[in-house]
């Protein structure tokens, strides 16, 4: 934002005229008077003051424009804060609906763990972990002693994972280097590590391979000659096996983390010896209610601040098109409707009042969700899959998007205008200062000249008077 020198907002500077030295620019007078030595110094000051006042008029106009735009900018920033908070509140509803407000209760946390995500619903999942499975392994049968065929040039080894063979080359042929090369390139398939199965005084370093997935798998490292360097694990890998909800159907998996329902992932930690573990998923009423209450509060703040810009004693954005757009977006959010069993926000406890604000009744959404979860899910949707959350998110993105959002663009445009006017004011200010300097210089010269003429006149007048006195004295003898 441009700034204006305080000298332009204060009364026009008054200079003291010279006391006889033509061309000098004079100095500021603390009395505010052009204290020239001529009898016309006050007139000369009046000329300067008048000229500077006229020259300053365009600056005052620009200052008024700048002040108005600054007011608009402040109002836009305040609205931006409101709508940004509303956007966050909508996102938080989505988070609460998609698992953030769910919690799990596990009868035996040593058997299974749970992670909830999008689509999770309340319920009890009984999992009978019959076998958590085992990863296939292999290990060098004796100390790793591969040496480079050509000194300084590491050999290429073959990594065998199941039916596939991959070429690997470390920075050298040491166990650590080969294991690091395996992890770097094929860590998604197999994990390699160097294990000292001896003692610290008599180390026996070997490479241990472990499959990334459960189940039987051949894991090997072969040298350039094709010789196997690993021994397969004495106990082969096994798939994990489990049964859900006493269904009688045992399922196998090559991972210990399994999805038992949309948004519900269970991680098997140990076999349960025939006693299933119960995972109870419940929705936290406080989290969902809190998200809805916050949404209503943020919405109401936005409505209030938009309304404050309209009507009598309106704010700086009065009659600007963006107000209409903001109002339209707010209305689109609060009046969103659907053809499903849940038709509007009112069914979820958000009542639209006559003044455009929302009132949230705690517990309504949770009750609706328990009673007809699918209808609530269909109405709410998500930020990307339709429903209220997508509609609200889109409406707020149109306002808050950093590059194309209405408010963001308006803020940028206003700031640019303020900066332009600031530059214009600075240029005008320089012109007025120059004008003032020139005029003061001219007036000082004029005052000096007049002063000199007055002085000469007084001398001549004095001489004339003396001559008259002498003539009279001569005539009277």
């Amino acid at each position, binding site marked *: 934002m441009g700034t204006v020198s305080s000298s332009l907002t204060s009364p026009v500077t008054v200079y003291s005229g010279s006391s006889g030295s033509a061309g000098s620019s004079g100095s500021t007078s603390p009395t505010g008077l052009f204290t020239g030595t001529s009898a016309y110094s006050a007139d000369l000051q009046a000329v300067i003051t008048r000229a500077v006042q006229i020259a300053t008029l365009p600056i005052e106009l620009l200052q008024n424009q700048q002040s108005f735009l600054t007011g608009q900018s402040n109002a836009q920033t305040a609205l931006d804060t409101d709508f940004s908070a509303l956007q966050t509140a909508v996102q938080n509803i989505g988070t609460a609906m998609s698992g953030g407000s769910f919690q799990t209760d596990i009868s035996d946390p040593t058997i299974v763990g749970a992670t909830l995500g999008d689509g999770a619903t309340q319920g009890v999942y009984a999992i009978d972990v019959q076998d958590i499975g085992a990863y296939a392994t292999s290990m060098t049968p004796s100390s790793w002693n591969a040496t480079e065929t050509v000194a300084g040039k590491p050999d290429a080894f073959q990594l065998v994972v199941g039916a596939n063979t991959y070429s690997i080359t470390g920075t050298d042929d040491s166990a650590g280097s080969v294991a690091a090369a395996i992890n770097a390139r094929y860590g998604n398939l197999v994990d390699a590590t160097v294990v000292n199965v001896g003692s610290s005084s008599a180390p026996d370093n070997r490479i241990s391979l472990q499959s990334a997935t459960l189940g039987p798998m051949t894991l090997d490292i072969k040298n350039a000659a094709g010789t196997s360097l690993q021994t397969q*694990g004495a106990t082969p890998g096994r798939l994990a096996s489990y049964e859900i909800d006493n269904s009688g159907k045992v399922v196998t998996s090559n991972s210990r983390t399994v999805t038992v329902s949309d948004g519900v992932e269970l991680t098997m930690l140990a076999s349960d010896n025939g006693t299933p573990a119960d995972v109870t998923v419940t929705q936290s009423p406080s989290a969902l209610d809190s998200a809805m209450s916050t949404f209503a509060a943020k919405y109401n703040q936005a409505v209030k601040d938009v309304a404050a810009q309209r009507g009598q004693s309106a704010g700086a954005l009065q009659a600007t098109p963006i107000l209409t757009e903001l109002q339209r977006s707010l209305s689109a959010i609060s009046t969103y409707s659907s053809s499903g069993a849940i038709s509007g926000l009112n069914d979820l406890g958000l009542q639209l009042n006559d003044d455009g604000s929302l009132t949230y009744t705690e517990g309504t959404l949770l009750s609706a969700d328990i009673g007809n979860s699918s209808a609530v899910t269909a109405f709410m949707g998500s930020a990307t899959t339709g429903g209220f959350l997508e509609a609200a998110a889109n409406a707020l993105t149109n306002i808050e998007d950093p590059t194309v959002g209405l408010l963001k663009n308006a803020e940028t445009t206003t700031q640019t205008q303020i900066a332009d006017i600031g530059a214009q004011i600075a240029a005008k200010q320089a012109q007025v200062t120059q004008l003032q300097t020139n005029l003061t210089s001219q007036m000082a010269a004029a005052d000096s000249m007049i002063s000199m003429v007055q002085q000469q006149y007084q001398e001549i007048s004095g001489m004339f008077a003396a001559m008259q006195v002498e003539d009279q004295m001569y005539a009277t003898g």
Partner: protein
Amino acid sequence: MPPVDARTEPIRRAVASGEFGKAQALWEDYAGRLAEEVRSGTFSSAKLEATRELAEWCRVTALCARSHAQGRLNRMAIARQYGAPCAASASASRISARA
């Protein structure tokens, strides 16, 4: 691969699966039965060799498992330094044991 022994196979399966707590309990039970055999005079040198082999296998397997786990922990710590995405959203769930 050693012959399958119905009494030691559960120990091997538990160790191979990383269920070391369970393996320890099975070992204690197995060791108790071996002690009973020694006292009754039915324990053989072949059984002693098999037990030694099983103990050595458990030791090496446990060492390997610990080394693999340590390697994963190290990589997780390094990945966290670089802001790698978490595998799962832990904050999305709260787990509590049923009283």
